[in-house]
């Protein structure tokens, strides 16, 4: 990789303006998150909880007395896990298959993969809704999971494909040459080598699923995921316990992702 980092001292003046600019962009990016965190400590108890009336931890405790909120979060996790596992499975098989084989219709698959990525989410949402209604699949967890698989699988494939482009099929030939059959070759050679790609693809799928509003909005039926619960409560003012849960989720995901990232970097250094 070629970096733009300028090494000549005479050209590296302290970019005061640049730094100020970057700081204000980060302020812009994090401002609403600060507001959310601040609101989670808001002692204001009347809807729409707009003005800040002092500091309290109360909402973090009350949160656990709100079964609707907790179950929505449970649904979100369930849908995210299930759709991540499915999309990683489908995506890994597809990415490896497309990397390995030349076949008729490969370019068609390739082109179709871009549809869920490029078209606005709302289109995917209403079209899935229409079809589920058409074939009378009751809307609920199953349709949520299927829809999340539909939009996250291409991302898994693209992430993996970037990894696979540097992956040499000779490794597999070498394994077979040394007496490993196809299953052993996959287990001992292919899988360990593409595992970092699978993990980051899965992480992406998980994040996309947890955050999804638009597609879930159309296919959920009566099942509420956490984002849909938020959507529902937004009209009347989001209760501080929702803010509290959001804050906890942010802390949780940041922690998990930082851990995995450092883990990924480690295994990358090896290869």
């Amino acid at each position, binding site marked *: 990789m070629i*970096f*733009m*980092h300028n090494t000549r001292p005479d050209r590296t003046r302290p*970019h005061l303006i*640049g730094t100020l*600019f*970057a700081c204000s962009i980060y302020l*812009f*990016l994090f*401002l*609403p*998150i600060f*507001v959310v965190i601040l609101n989670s400590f808001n002692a204001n108890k009347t809807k729409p909880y*707009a*003005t800040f009336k002092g500091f309290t931890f109360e909402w973090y405790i009350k949160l656990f007395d709100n079964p609707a909120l907790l179950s929505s979060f449970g649904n979100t996790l369930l849908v995210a896990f299930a759709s991540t596992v499915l999309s990683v499975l*489908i995506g890994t*098989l*597809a990415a490896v*298959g497309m990397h*390995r*084989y030349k*076949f008729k*219709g490969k370019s068609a*698959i390739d*082109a179709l*993969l871009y*549809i869920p*990525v*490029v*078209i*606005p989410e*709302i*289109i995917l949402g*209403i*079209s899935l809704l*229409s*079809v589920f209604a*058409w074939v009378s699949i009751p809307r609920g967890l199953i349709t949520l999971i*299927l829809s999340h*698989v*539909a939009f996250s*699988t*291409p*991302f898994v494939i*693209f992430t993996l494909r970037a990894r696979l482009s540097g992956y040499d099929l000779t490794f597999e030939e070498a394994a077979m040459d040394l007496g490993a059959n196809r299953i052993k070759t996959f287990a001992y050679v292919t899988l360990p080598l593409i595992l970092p790609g699978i993990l980051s693809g899965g992480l992406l799928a998980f*994040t996309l699923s*947890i955050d999804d*509003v638009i597609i879930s909005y*159309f296919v959920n039926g009566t099942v509420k995921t*956490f*984002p849909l619960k938020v*959507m529902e409560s*937004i009209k009347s003012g*989001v209760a501080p316990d929702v803010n509290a849960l959001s804050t906890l*989720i*942010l802390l949780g*995901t*940041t922690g998990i*992702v930082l851990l995995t*990232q450092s883990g990924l970097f480690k295994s990358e250094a090896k290869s």
Partner: protein
Amino acid sequence: MMTLNDKKQKMPMLTMLSPITSMLIFLVVIPLIYVLVLSFCKTNEYYQVMFTFSFDNYKNLLSPSYFQVYMNSIVIAAITTVICIVLGYPFAYYIVKQPPKIRTILYMLVIIPFWTNSLIRIYGWKSFLGASGLLNNLFVWLGITHKPLELLFNRGAVVLGMTYTLFPFMVLPLYTAIEKLDLTLIEASYDLGARKVNTFLHVILPLTSSGIFAGAIMVFIPTLGFFFVSDILGGGKSDMIGNLIERQFGSANNWPLGSALSIILILLTLIMVRLYTKAGGKLEDLG
């Protein structure tokens, strides 16, 4: 590329590729075709879909009131895209210029806000800008204004929300494009007597244009469909195509009309992607 022993590969190949193929057929192709079919249908008085062929939905969509919404959508999407480029380019450039360690941290800081639900963040803006929100409180306290300003429920607030939500989608492709830039090309440009402005215009900008195009596509198209942003921050006063579609599949319960609107949005998307690929953009960069 060498292919593995070809004769004995039929089975593994089918096992690997049939899941994705069936997923794409059942969850992407058939739904989209079904929407196309729906767009030519009608509803009866009980809001049930009647499978009769007609262009009525499309005729309805030509009325001036809908046109206003299309224009509003395109204007908002265009302004959002331009703001994202103008802010995103120098920002991405700044990040890339940092030493590797700091760069990784700065890059992660762009992604972290993603991990809070986008609705929550938009709501954060709403409560920040609202009549009794932090900003108005600050203004009143500073004496800039006596009564709270109406900062929400206008096109500006929608643009702000869209810019906020989609800004990272502009920065990430720009970052990738600028990072790939070969430093020696800039040195060559200086060496040949080009000053900073000319080097930027004639060397850096053309070489990173792929990032700008990819970012523009990734901002412009989703903006058209992000109905909840215009709902929450626009308060229904700045409707976009996404809001219309959402309403037809929701409260208005006219799926054929909503489908026709979706087809129009798909066409808009296709036009944008076509323009993008014509300008030399690659689909891979959108992934």
